[in-house]
């Protein structure tokens, strides 16, 4: 936390090294978040790219409220949501989940580390985007419901409902697979 504040302070003074350190520190986390949300690596990389370029543009005027990780995660989630909307608009008439699956090249490409992670990735892909977003941001990135609600521009009750419905749906998918 203190280190992040120091990095932000140096970044505002124009230190490229500070910006590089911020990038190195959070790049993998942010890319994982974007890939899990979008299921498309190149789109995810573009989102992370846009977030850092936008951060760089605010050099000298950037003000951090809260944590740097929370701020960057929120920016990535917002970027991913915009891209998802664009993609949904292009694929109108098709089922959203199906279109996303067809865009993705499969979890193996992303080298997640274990079969279990790949299985979870597949399970999450079956959820509607909003539910997946809340679950990933809360459980993988430690964001509070309040922060997610603020980022998504919805009420905290909506976020909690999405979270609960998402978990219920995941559970029913897992139970369905077990009983087969």
């Amino acid at each position: 936390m203190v280190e992040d504040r120091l990095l932000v302070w140096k970044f505002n003074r124009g230190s490229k090294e500070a910006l590089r350190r911020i990038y190195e520190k959070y790049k993998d986390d942010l890319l994982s978040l974007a890939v899990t949300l979008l299921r498309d690596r190149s789109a995810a990389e573009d989102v992370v790219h846009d977030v850092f370029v936008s951060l760089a543009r605010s050099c000298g005027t950037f003000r951090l409220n809260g944590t740097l990780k929370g701020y960057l995660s929120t920016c990535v989630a917002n970027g991913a949501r915009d891209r998802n909307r664009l993609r949904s608009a292009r694929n109108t008439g098709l089922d959203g989940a199906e279109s996303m699956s067809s865009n993705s090249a499969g979890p193996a490409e992303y080298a997640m580390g274990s079969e279990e992670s790949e299985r979870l990735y597949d399970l999450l892909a079956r959820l509607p985007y909003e539910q997946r977003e809340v679950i990933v941001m809360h459980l993988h990135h430690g964001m509070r419901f309040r922060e997610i609600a603020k980022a998504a521009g919805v009420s905290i009750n909506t976020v909690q409902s999405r979270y609960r419905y998402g978990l219920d749906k995941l559970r029913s998918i897992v139970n369905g697979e077990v009983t087969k």
Partner: protein
Amino acid sequence: MRLIENMETFIRARKPHIATNADTDKRIVDDSFAAMEAAKAGLKGGRPNLWAAVLRSKVTRLAAAAMIIVVIGILIHGVSRKQTDGQTVPAPAKSPAEMMTAMSLNIAYRKGGLEAVEKQCDKAFKMLGLQPTRISARELLEEFSSEEVERKES
């Protein structure tokens, strides 16, 4: 409940780790540095935006709001004065000291009535080193009102 907790543990324990590759890193870092340079150049070359500076801090925001209210108040006062007179008579220019005195007395009266005005006057006399006469503001007003009654009767 138990099942939901299990599901949460299941998801938490399987956080995916996706690493960026060198090409992506280079592209993002280079573009970010270019954007940073452009931002720095803009900050040095561009004229500072007054409103952006004012809105940045809470104190300056409040000061600006107070300033706007005072200006609007003065304007409204000027307009209403013109309307009541019927004809436009140029108001005699007031000195800042007179305006401040009138404002402070007005505020004191609104806050605590005549007693507050009296206190305010005492404070002013103390500050300026003047010796007030023995008469209080209430007595002064009573005197004025009795004079007016006498004038009307006559």
